[in-house]
């Protein structure tokens, strides 16, 4: 069941109605939400519910065994062999599920290629394994629970129903945000009042997310698919294709997060912010504080810091950054192209750390016109570095990356747009300009919800315009959300 389907809208309305009726009975509400969440997930493939159940039971048992009482939260925990063994069991179980269902064929095929390269003919056995939707998200979420318990940052959840709902809560089950136990579990333990403000705000997020997905992302996807079909017609088309993908992936993924947060908000729950105007980032560190925040903060807290973070020597710090981004790349998919993308992101972060002291000396004084120009130039420059990353992310192969770069730097002007490309370009331009205007207003006002501050008349036109755009241009049940494949 995808968020951009009638099925989901009807499902959400039913869930809202029943949850409201059960609002003062926490256990009954949680039981209902758990059944609804399993139904939501089961609509893709009910067989994979077993994996969620395995992950839930393993981490619940590990959590009970780690046994952190509320009074002990924040105190330096014991890190004895028993607790380490429990944590290891959780890591092995969750990463084992990921390894089998997401990476098995990748590792076998890569090993086979390597062995073939040195003269062996290994006849590898690959399995036809279907990637269970959302597995990367819920395994990371449950892992964060056991790691936080091990570190003594949260207390053990004793109620299996509440914990199972934490793992499977439907708004963020399939593509995040990857919630933290310390943020979501306390909300699930208590009765939640949905105020008119909560409901209006949640409905606004769902509406805006739907608009971004089915009007912008799905319409721009045609041009992206056309451009990445083979070698680009010219450098201009290649560049526009990359811009289009930048718009598509942002609108697609941030739309999912908005709908997830909006649906949760309508139910009375608060999910973490996942996107904060990422294309206004001025450097790679800034970008990762704005893009897929729940994953980047997960990688920071549980991987980068575990490796030593920046409390180590300079070179070890670069190594930590690179390892974190390589694994972050691999998290996105079992393919060397994602590893390459992670390597590129690691290079950007290391490079930025290296040159930042020198660049800081060139930066004009804050508040001057020169500082404004400098800032805008940094945004534009870094947006293009991000786009280079998106080229790697979207390309089928390294050869296609090379073909795009050859076209951009060697054959820029191309033929006049044909009929199909003309339509696509008009869509891309309209989408890009509209998105930029809204985001610029959000950025300037430092308020992601600036729309809600607009005068009533302007908001009315905005809502009506977006609704009519969904009706007229929306590709209902068009493309699956991109991040479902991860």
């Amino acid at each position: 069941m995808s968020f951009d389907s009638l099925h989901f809208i009807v499902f959400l309305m039913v869930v809202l109605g029943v949850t409201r009726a059960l609002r003062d009975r926490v256990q009954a509400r949680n039981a209902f939400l758990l059944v609804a969440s399993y139904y939501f997930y089961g609509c893709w493939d009910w067989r994979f519910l077993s994996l969620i159940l395995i992950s839930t039971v393993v981490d619940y048992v590990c959590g009970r065994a780690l046994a952190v009482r509320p009074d002990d939260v924040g105190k330096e925990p014991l890190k004895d062999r028993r607790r380490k063994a429990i944590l290891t069991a959780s890591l092995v179980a969750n990463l084992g599920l990921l390894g089998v269902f997401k990476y098995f064929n990748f590792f076998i095929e890569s090993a086979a290629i390597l062995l073939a390269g040195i003269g062996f003919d290994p006849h590898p056995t690959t399995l036809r394994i279907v990637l269970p939707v959302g597995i990367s998200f819920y395994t990371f979420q449950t892992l964060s629970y056991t790691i936080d318990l091990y570190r003594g940052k949260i207390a053990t959840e004793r109620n299996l129903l509440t914990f199972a709902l934490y793992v499977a809560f439907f708004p963020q089950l399939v593509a995040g945000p990857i919630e933290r136990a310390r943020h979501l579990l306390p909300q699930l333990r208590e009765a939640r009042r949905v105020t008119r403000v909560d409901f209006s705000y949640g409905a606004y997020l769902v509406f805006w997310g739907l608009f971004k997905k089915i009007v912008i992302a799905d319409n721009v996807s045609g041009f992206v698919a056309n451009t990445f079909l083979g070698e680009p017609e010219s450098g201009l088309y290649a560049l526009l294709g990359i811009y289009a993908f930048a718009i598509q992936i942002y609108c697609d993924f941030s739309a999912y997060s908005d709908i997830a947060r909006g649906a949760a908000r309508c139910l009375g729950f608060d999910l973490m912010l996942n996107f904060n105007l990422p294309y206004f980032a001025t450097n790679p560190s800034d970008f990762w504080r704005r893009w897929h925040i729940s994953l980047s903060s997960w990688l920071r807290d549980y991987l980068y810091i575990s490796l030593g973070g920046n409390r180590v020597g300079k070179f070890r710090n670069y190594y930590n950054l690179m390892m974190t981004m390589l694994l972050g790349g691999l998290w996105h998919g079992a393919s060397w192209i994602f590893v390459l993308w992670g390597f590129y992101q690691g290079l950007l972060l290391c490079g930025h750390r290296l040159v930042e002291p020198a660049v800081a000396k060139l930066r004009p004084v804050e508040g001057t016109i020169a500082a404004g120009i400098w800032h805008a130039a940094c945004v534009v420059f870094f947006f293009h570095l991000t786009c280079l990353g998106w080229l790697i992310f979207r390309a089928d192969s390294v050869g296609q990356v090379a073909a795009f770069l050859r076209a951009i730097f060697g054959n820029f002007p191309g033929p006049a747009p044909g009929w199909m490309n003309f339509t696509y370009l008009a869509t891309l331009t309209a989408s890009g300009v509209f998105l930029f205007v809204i985001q610029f207003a959000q950025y300037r006002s430092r308020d992601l919800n600036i729309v809600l501050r607009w005068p009533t008349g302007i908001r009315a036109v905005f809502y009506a315009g977006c609704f009519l755009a969904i009706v007229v241009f929306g590709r209902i049940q068009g493309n699956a959300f991109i991040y479902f494949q991860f």
Partner: protein
Amino acid sequence: MHSSTSSSEGTYPGVGRPWAVVAAVLVVFAVEMVVRLTPTHLLLGYGEGLGSYYEVVHTIDEYGAAEVAILGSSRGRESVVMPMFDAYLDSALGRDVYTANYSCPDARTSEMLLVTRKLMSAPVPPKVVLYVISPRAFHGDERSSQREEIFGVFPDQYGQDAAHLLASFSERPLWQLRNMLQENYMTFRYRYRIRNLLASLPRGRMPTSPTQGGYTPWQVYVRDRSLETHPISERQIRDYVSRLLDANGRYVLGAGRVADLEEIARICRAAGTELILVTAPISADLARHFPPGVLDEYDAILGRVAAAAGSRVLGPADLGLAFGPAEFREQSHLNRRGAEKLTKALVADVVQPTLSR
């Protein structure tokens, strides 16, 4: 920048008060009124993809069945130049003949069976159905519930796919809801025309549709493109064909699709409609890349179905035509020049004699 879930949300003047939403509903309602007051013939527009199936349904609902109806996939759409077909036929017969091309992109016989049923349910069924067909019409055996449900057909999906049982359980009421929206919310029903209108703003002209007797956009905007001006490599054609092969490297001409064509033939015969199967020209390069035996099997199927139903099968050779690289837009679709050549022959040698009988 603070988070959008900060506690300051309560300070937003717009949150929690309904006035902007109420005003927006009024704007949406006003647009609906304008659409409802506009004559319907101005609202039917060129649909792409799934939209073309809706366009066919709405056009038949609005105008009834054409006297000469053309069926097919995108090959059928691009193989006939409808304004020319219509003008030649009117001129040859000395009267106004209602013609329409109901071909839809990627349509197989299964979808054309639905169009045929829709046409036959009109007060006056077509006199002639020209089915411009290609091997693609028989490709595979899977059903597209998305397309079938546009025609009000709800296949019994329960239990067919155990893994997706829950999804299939809830499909039917949702498609009924969607069809209900199509019936009652005119802004949604005629959204393709609104799209066309907006798309025409920078270009200055509206795309026409073969369903309403107009050109296809390809016939207007890229009319001169050919395999000579835009050659297609062997590798591209090989890749194209390989995407159509199953896991065992076979190009499957589905038994279900053949049965659907037999049903089309049976329905036409029962209604007294003459069904003529016209094999769509494909480029020599594409024909060469089909797995051995597929085109022979395809020809045999057409011959068998036509013989059983008393219909005719006509290929380019039967019409005395041959098509070269200058007449294909790419490997599988005719360009405007090729389509004009086929159109003339179809009118002169096939449709006009049939209607004159």
